[in-house]
């Protein structure tokens, strides 16, 4: 490789003569050494431009830092997930649709689970409570979302460095299951609707049924299985009709025998009237018996009372006898008439 050379080394061939056609007539300073005296207060304007550019660049850098959250105070939240697929550094943690935190780092834990380190802005950290739930949702279209849900806002606030397990909901993971289920369903449908399937056999049976319905015997053939059975059924019906006719005649005769003028029913009614009369007489006889019984009851009561009076009378006699005995004893004791005490004793009957 040849060394870099000065644009025009001393041994270079002489430069060709200037070509007047190559000069751009629109640039007045062309083809001449630069001259600083063509623009008024040039240095000042150039400095202003320099300052303007520096302000632009510094402002843009500060805005990028601000947008990246370099100037906001944060607290750390660690979410544990089985799978961190779809989670990227810088994505948002949202609460009610508002971003309140950013994913700062994703690392693999000792137990093989993914640790998603999130910086939550301190001014928004009060939305997160100890009972908050975190979800990691992957949509079919679009990116993964990490969302926070807080049911009880009066619970204690989530501490700095809290570790929580994230609940995962994967819409795309359901797609293979749905496809497999749909495939099974279609296979079952194909099995059902094939010529040897249940639906095909049912349709064939339905066709046979329709043919039998349209044939001789109609629905009876369908119900009884064959035309011969249907004929037997028709014959049975005919015989039943004849039997019913005979039964009609029998019923008419029975009506005459039972309910006619000299039938069983009028005679029965007369018998019942006679029975009623006999019952009335029996009732009167019973009343008389009842009166006799009442008299007997009264006699019995009088005898009972007399018995009670005899008891009282006996008691009075006994009392009088005791008094007499007492009096005799007293007389005997005071004035004894008998020599033999046994003869002196007055004996009561």
């Amino acid at each position: 490789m040849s060394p870099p050379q000065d644009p025009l080394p001393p041994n270079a061939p002489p430069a060709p003569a200037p070509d007047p056609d190559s000069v751009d007539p629109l640039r007045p300073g062309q083809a001449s050494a630069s001259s600083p005296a063509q623009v008024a207060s040039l240095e000042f304007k150039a400095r202003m431009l320099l300052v303007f550019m520096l302000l632009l660049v510094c402002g843009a850098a500060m805005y990028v830092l601000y947008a990246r959250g370099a100037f906001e105070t944060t607290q750390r939240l660690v979410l544990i997930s089985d799978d961190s697929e779809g989670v990227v550094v810088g994505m948002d943690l949202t609460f009610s649709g508002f971003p309140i935190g950013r994913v700062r780092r994703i690392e693999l834990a000792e137990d093989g689970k993914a640790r998603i380190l999130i910086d939550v802005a301190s001014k928004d950290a009060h939305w997160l409570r100890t009972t908050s739930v975190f979800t990691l949702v992957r949509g079919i279209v679009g990116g993964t979302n990490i969302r926070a849900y807080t049911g009880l806002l009066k619970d204690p606030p989530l501490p700095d460095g809290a570790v929580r397990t994230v609940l995962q909901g994967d819409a795309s993971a359901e797609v293979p299951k749905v496809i497999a289920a749909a495939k099974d369903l279609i296979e079952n449908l194909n099995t059902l609707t094939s010529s040897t399937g249940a639906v095909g056999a049912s349709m064939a049976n339905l066709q046979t049924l329709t043919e039998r319905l349209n044939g001789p015997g109609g629905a009876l053939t369908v119900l009884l299985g064959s035309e011969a059975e249907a004929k037997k059924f028709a014959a049975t019906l005919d015989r039943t009709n004849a039997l019913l006719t005979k039964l009609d005649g029998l019923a008419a005769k029975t009506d005459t025998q039972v309910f006619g003028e000299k039938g069983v029913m009028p005679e029965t009614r007369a018998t019942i009237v006679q029975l009623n009369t006999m019952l009335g007489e029996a009732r009167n006889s019973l009343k008389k018996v009842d009166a006799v019984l009442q008299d007997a009851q009264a006699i019995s009561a009088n005898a009972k009372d007399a018995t009670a009076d005899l008891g009282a009378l006996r008691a009075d006699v006994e009392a009088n006898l005791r008094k007499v005995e007492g009096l005799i004893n007293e007389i005997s004791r005071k004035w004894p008439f008998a020599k033999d005490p046994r003869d002196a004793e007055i004996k009561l009957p």
Partner: protein
Amino acid sequence: MTSMGSWQSRLTQIGHAAQQWVIEWWRLIYLGALLLVLTLSPSSYSRESRLVLSRHIYLNTAPILLWFTVLCALVTVVLTRIVVVTALSYGLSQYALQVVIRVLVLELIPLTAALFVALRCTIPDGAELTAMQASGQLDEMRRQGGDPVRREVLPRVVAGMFSGITLAALSSVVALVVAYVAVYGFNVSGLAAYTRLFGQVFSPAVTLIFVLKTLFFCLAVALIPMASALYGMRDASVRTSAEMRGLVRMFAVILLIEVTSLVGNYY
């Protein structure tokens, strides 16, 4: 024997072309390193040099600043409406602003600013330098003890880079403001969400790639026309072919930087 001779001559041509290609790129890198050293040297900022540098910075930046900003604002309005309406029709409106920021600020604006500076400033500056070299002014300067690289090339390269960076920065800010106004209207209610979205797009890696891309774009459009002007005359008998080679090289480098940045951002 004839066939062997033609193979040899063909191989010689390929070798010569490859050597020439490597030499040209090496000269470009060497000139870039030389200019970087001169840029960082305090001796390059004497009173006279500062005046020359100021003139180039002002003339390369001020006249195009307003027009480029207006053009950028118009393009931003149109593109934002297209993206927002399309995203809305597909039910993806939540990604519209992110797409606008990514497409406009990250990808289109640095490239557009660099190409605008190249077309309006650095390519004419290169042509001017070519004319000076063709007229022998640089030789004369060298004979008088001056340094053409320090006096003529350095101010143009620095001015080109300054112009590119300023245009990219200003138009990025204007595009962000215009996109916000086009989506949210003239109220500040969406500022917090917009800032958060901006922060999500400009992750540290993306920001670094964006800054490096802008710097390398500006360096490419400022340096390559000057290098073509300085080194192109000796290898080409016709001036336009040297300019064309410089332009092709510049666009190739810009394409390479853009592809590298895309790979860095999205892979």
